[in-house]
């Protein structure tokens, strides 16, 4: 075999492997999307129609514009999407605000026990949520907060806040302390220097953390499953699961709900990919 043909073979194998990878990543999700624009009949014929002869977006309008009657699963979609948005935004805002302040404190101010405190922040990442759910459930029930968005915001914060602190510690460390010192010599108070000098510099890090935390909060399922039961707090994650179990076997509507629920995190992750990789490598954290 000549060197040239050897090279061709390697190049062929390379593109073959890449092609295979792309198919494995895309095919399942693509199938979910195709299912969502098919009719029930397309999906239940054997042999299967891999692509609907008449694609339809009818289910998207049914979910997004609301159905008829409150018992109809489709009519819950808008309400649950709103719940997801409110809960994820609140959790992210609270966590990023308090988490940034704490991370600043843990990187910039010297005090006893600081380093111990900074690394114990990673321990919650190792705790199984199921271990926390029982006491949290009993507490939330006693407070009469079951099935409220407030309960979800608080419980999500319990694992997203430590994660945010951990990520923000990394971002604060990447800012040289000299800049802040200079501001303080010029008469800035510590808090003043934090808000006027340090926070603007660390803004890209805050944005990265914000997106990362939002995706994790949006995707959360377990706490929402236990704590929410009606439309007053049910999130999209829980509703989408109900499409596949409770509401008969409507594969088309289920797929449509799945595609819609995944759009915000997928779009954010694809657009801000650099941030996500940063978050994953810095935090070694669960998504």
């Amino acid at each position: 075999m000549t060197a040239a043909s050897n090279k061709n073979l390697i190049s062929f194998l390379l593109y073959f492997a890449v092609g295979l990878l792309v198919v494995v990543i895309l095919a399942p999700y693509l199938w979910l999307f195709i299912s969502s624009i098919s009719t029930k009949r397309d999906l239940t014929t054997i042999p299967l129609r891999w692509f609907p002869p008449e694609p339809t977006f009818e289910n998207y309008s049914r979910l997004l514009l609301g159905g008829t009657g409150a018992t109809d699963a489709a009519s819950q979609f808008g309400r649950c999407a709103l719940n997801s948005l409110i809960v994820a935004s609140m959790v992210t805002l609270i966590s990023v605000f308090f988490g940034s302040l704490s991370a600043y404190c843990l990187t910039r101010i010297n005090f006893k026990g600081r380093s111990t405190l900074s690394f114990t922040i990673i321990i919650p990442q190792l705790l199984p949520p199921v271990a926390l759910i029982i006491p949290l459930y009993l507490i939330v029930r006693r407070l009469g907060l079951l099935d409220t968005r407030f309960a979800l915001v608080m419980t999500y914060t319990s694992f997203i806040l430590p994660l945010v602190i951990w990520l923000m510690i990394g971002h604060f460390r990447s800012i040289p302390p000299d800049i802040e010192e200079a501001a303080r010599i010029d008469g800035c108070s510590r808090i003043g220097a934090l808000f006027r000098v340090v926070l603007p510099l660390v803004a890209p890090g805050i944005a990265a953390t914000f997106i990362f935390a939002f995706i994790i909060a949006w995707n959360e399922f377990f706490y929402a499953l236990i704590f929410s039961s009606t439309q007053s707090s049910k999130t999209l994650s829980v509703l989408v699961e109900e499409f596949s179990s409770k509401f008969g076997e409507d594969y088309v509507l289920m797929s449509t709900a799945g595609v819609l629920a995944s759009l915000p995190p997928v779009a954010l992750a694809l657009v801000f990919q650099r941030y996500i990789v940063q978050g994953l490598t810095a935090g070694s954290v669960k998504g």
Partner: protein
Amino acid sequence: MGSGKGNSLISSFEKKRNVILLLLLPSMVLIFGLLIYPLIYSFYISLLDFNLTRPGVTPFIGLNNYIQALSDGFFLSSLLRTIYFAGVTVSVEIVLGLAVALLLKQKFRGRGLVRGLVILPWALPTVVNGIMWKWIYNANYGALNALLSGMGLIDSYQLWLGEPMRALHSVMFANIWKETPVGVLMILAVLEGISEELYEAARVDGANTWQRFRYITLPLIKPMIGVLFVIKIVWAIREFDLIYIVTRGGPAGGTTVLSYLAYLNGFKFFKMGYASAISYFIIVLAMIIGIPYIISIARSQKEVV
């Protein structure tokens, strides 16, 4: 030393303490109230015969819940299943993750695009991942049956979720699909940091591809692989969502892992004490594996501080 200076020293000390309190306290209160306190409370519950169907009657029974778990065959088989699930999925994810990362390190057209796509499974909500695979595995209309029979690989449609071991492996596959990208991206980040000159020098010295991988790449990515291994095992041990969504722990308990068993006892049988004891077994398991990781983090923290 004048008294004025001493005063300002004290006041600056107090000021510093106030600043620390102001910055740290809100987070610490939240973390303590929502994490530490529930964790302690959970341990207390695990010592009680606490059944939600008998309100007000919660006798203290010591370690009986733990003893009951250890003498229960279903608990033990769930424990084994958890270890099997975690061990196999994580090993496959890391080997695959390394392979894909090495692939994406090569130069080819459209590399940026493919790298971008890799994040998709990670970003997908667990629920969507779950219903997607449940739909693909569907015995009557699933895409997997249609695909395999279309290719002539199976004669008749299979019940992918109908038999315990097969169902477990189906769920494990779905988990591997979702979790592998984390490893790919993290290993790729390390690979990108390796200087091209190292490989160049090795090439000049006559090292072949395998030797370059074995003596340059592998030692440099080893720490990351170690981190991945620990972190992923811990995540896999606590896996719940996918099992709940795809199989509800069935058929015949064949996919019941510890997290699901704890959920089942707590929220279906209302045995809060027993469920707490099971979840403490998960904590212990996670901590045994996680401690080396925490220690290494602690060390790196000390270095930075």
